[in-house]
């Protein structure tokens, strides 16, 4: 469904952000992008959403190459925009409509779906946002904004969900709901995180990005989580002291569920 071949990307006069990324994602697959801050995860997701174009390499969606020329074709772009959606890392960037209801209905309205209002009501209810429907999105708390942004993309009923650090401002209950939803929704999901605990909840397969957007690993998630050298080179684990009943010791570890790392210690 998604095919990336040797993607290179850099802003003008700046070091590389993505350096030779190749990737193939099947329909319904859940892929986790792992990497430290600045490893190019967000840029890769924007590229998959057709928002930025690589300097070299090819991006194919559904067998068709995503090019600036193709993105100018109305019919194709409309299908692409409704099938591939991106949840931005900072939900504020996505909220520009007067009310929560308008925000959620915006995408379906803009793409011409006749049932835009019904979709908005459905997702308002699904995410428990109905009481906030007439409020301005910017007046909400961080977690509520994240939910509105999520509802705004889910209302398009997309096939591919691109999620940039989706649980960063959700409370535990909302995070749990999101994890369950993503596992059950049957959609293709590409989710970026540096939170290994989130990765294991979603995990089937992961792409680990190192510094400068170099791909370090692409394969089953559990294996990556047990590869200490890999996690160290991707800056995903670190060393600091721990105290247990008066005993202090230090070891390399990630902040994740105890069982994820205990077994390989």
């Amino acid at each position, binding site marked *: 469904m998604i095919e990336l071949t040797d993607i290179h990307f850099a*802003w003008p006069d*700046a070091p590389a*952000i993505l350096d030779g990324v190749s990737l193939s994602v099947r329909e319904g697959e859940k892929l986790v992008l792992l990497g430290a801050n*600045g490893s*190019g995860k*967000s*840029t890769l997701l924007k590229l998959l959403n057709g928002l930025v174009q690589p300097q070299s390499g090819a991006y194919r969606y559904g067998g068709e190459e995503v090019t600036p020329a193709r993105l100018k074709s109305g019919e194709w772009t409309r299908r692409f925009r409704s099938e591939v959606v991106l949840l931005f890392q900072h939900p504020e960037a996505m909220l*520009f409509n007067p009310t929560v209801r308008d925000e959620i209905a915006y995408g379906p309205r803009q793409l011409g779906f006749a049932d835009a209002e019904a979709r908005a009501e459905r997702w308002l209810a699904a995410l428990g946002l109905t009481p906030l429907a007439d409020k301005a999105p910017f007046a909400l708390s961080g977690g509520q904004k994240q939910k509105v942004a999520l509802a705004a993309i889910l209302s398009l009923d997309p096939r591919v969900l691109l999620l940039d650090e989706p649980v960063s401002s959700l409370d535990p209950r909302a995070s749990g709901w999101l994890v369950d939803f993503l596992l059950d929704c049957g959609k293709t999901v590409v989710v970026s995180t540096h939170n290994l605990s989130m990765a294991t909840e979603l995990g089937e397969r992961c792409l680990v990005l190192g510094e400068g957007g170099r791909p370090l690993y692409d394969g089953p998630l559990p294996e990556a989580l047990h590869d200490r050298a890999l996690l160290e080179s991707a800056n995903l684990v670190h060393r600091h002291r721990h105290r247990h009943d008066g005993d202090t010791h230090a070891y390399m570890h990630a902040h994740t569920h105890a069982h994820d790392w205990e077994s390989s210690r």
Partner: protein
Amino acid sequence: MHIPDGFLSPQTYLPAYAAAGLAWAWAARGLRRTLDEETVPRLAAMTALAYGLGLVMVPIPGGTSGHALGVAMLALLFGVRLAFLAYSLVLALQSLLFGAGGITALAVNALAMGLCGSLAALLTYRLLRRMNETAAVAIAAWCSVLLPGLLVALALGAQPSIAHREDGTPLFFPFGFAITLPAVVIPHLFIGAGEAVLTVLVWRFARARKWCSA
């Protein structure tokens, strides 16, 4: 410097709205020509920035502090049109969203601070930058505070002669130029100095920064 509601006569603020309307059309047209899909988000971001800069407290020589104006910063970095529109929107939001008043004086405030302030900053900077860039930025910022101050003092000071009863009793702002000019302009000489220091520091930061890390 911000004029509250009720002190400007309709003979002043209605023509000011007409002039501001023309200036807004000029700025919006120019902006559409130079920017494309970023116009809306960029104008919104600059409006928020102009509002935020107004919340920053600038130290003024003598131990006190005042709110920054920031119009020189916006004009030097993003151009007169964007600075003017952003300032006008800030005034509208302050008045209509936060209830801070000043809707009748909006046009005069926008023309004085947003348009004349940015034009003063940009022209001064262009005139002086060959001699010394830092000094040019500082003087530009100082002028961007002083000129609007002067214009506001003139607008207020003209009220007793523009709108009064037959017996000479004022109907709106009661003081003439003899009081408004020193009362507004003298403090702005010092406020301008604080603004100049702030603008130079931010100018250096902005030059060194590449704005957006991906």
